[in-house]
């Protein structure tokens, strides 16, 4: 079951964003505001209850310089272990896949292999190398991702990719769990003499005391 893009983007209201003052202006678009980025969010049947979108994808048309910051909790989820290893091996990335519903934490070797299988499938669909695909998961600890539902949804998710504001908003909804609002923002500013755009999305409402490194 795939959620049409515009439905996904309005499933929950957007959070107010309190930007600090500075030489920038807020623009629409979240993760798709910057040149070269596309996004999509859909309901892939992963959540335990309800049909809120639960699968998000952000892609870049070119090899993007990548960086990451991760929990220092030693009980670290499989996607955290996978991303840290991948970023050690590669300076660039082309895609970030996010699932909501299952944290894929405390799932051992099987959970790690689930990540690899999802990465391999998505890399083939996108025509990129597996090590250019990064993964984030959130949800119930101890539960493996519903891999069948996720893999079946990937073709629809890839076909839904768009550089529009709705694409960004759909992705921002699809990464939420107990959030009451989606979190997405973008700004444009002069850096040197060039206009640069920075955008982002986030989720989080409970189990929040990040110590990322």
């Amino acid at each position, binding site marked *: 079951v795939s959620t049409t893009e515009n439905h996904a983007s309005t499933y929950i209201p957007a959070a107010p964003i309190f930007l600090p003052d500075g030489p920038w202006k807020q623009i629409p678009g979240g993760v798709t505001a910057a040149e070269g980025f596309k996004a999509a969010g859909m309901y892939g049947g992963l959540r335990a209850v309800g049909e809120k979108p639960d699968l998000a994808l952000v892609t870049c048309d070119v090899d*993007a310089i990548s960086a990451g910051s991760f929990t220092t909790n030693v009980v670290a989820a499989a996607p*955290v272990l996978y991303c840290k290893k991948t970023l050690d091996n590669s300076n660039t990335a082309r895609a970030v896949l996010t699932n909501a519903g299952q*944290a894929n934490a405390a799932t051992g070797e099987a959970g790690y292999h689930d990540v690899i299988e999802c990465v391999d499938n998505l890399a083939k669909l996108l025509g990129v190398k597996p090590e250019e695909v990064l993964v984030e998961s959130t949800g119930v600890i101890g539960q493996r991702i519903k891999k069948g539902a996720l893999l079946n949804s990937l073709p629809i998710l890839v076909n839904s990719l768009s550089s529009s504001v709705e694409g960004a908003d759909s992705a921002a909804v699809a990464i939420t769990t107990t959030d009451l609002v989606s979190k997405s923002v973008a700004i444009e500013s002069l850096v040197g003499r060039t206009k640069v755009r920075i955008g982002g999305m986030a989720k989080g409402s409970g189990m929040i005391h990040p110590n990322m490194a």
Partner: protein
Amino acid sequence: TMLGVITTDAWVTSDVWRKMVQVAVNRSFNQITVDGDTSTNDTVIALASGLSGIRCISSLDSDEAIQLQACLDAVMQGLAKSIAWDGEGATCLIEVSVTGANSEAEAAKVARSVASSSLVKAAVYGRDPNWGRIAAAAGYSGVAFHQNLLRVELGNILLMDGGEPQSFDRGEASSYLRTAGETHGTVKIQISIGNGPGQGQAWGCDLSYDYVKINAEYTS
């Protein structure tokens, strides 16, 4: 769990980008708290396409790097504050600003200690301008400062100065808290711990009955 995906069309070398992202994470996501529980999955991934046409930023000290860092900080702080604003059961965002510390890191540590205090969070939910709890949370942060230099303001109401409570209008202070709760607004706590150059902020939310209800039902 908090997750973040950040994108930009700036062109940055890998090592500079990775350092900039961690600095921004330390000034934003690592300065929020809802319940003091660090998740197994917290992740921020940041991608730079370089398609804006800007010349490549290869040094952290360049003007362009300083400007890009400020933009990155702003986007991550905007998102981080929205996470704290949406904390489970929250009725308001709590913004703690600390000045007068010896360093940015020390100021950030004091700010997060106050924002994390269950007693401060519960007092905000009870609309109680409880300066003693704020002072105690600053005092156990692990940052050394002379208690006679401690100054605490709630909004623009001076609660403590010179390390001692000031006479203030409790009704006014309580209604400041109540208004913030009724409008899902922001409670600002400003703390000074001395005369140093260090300043920092942290964000949290009040602690309500709903937080317990949500987490007694939602199994993680």
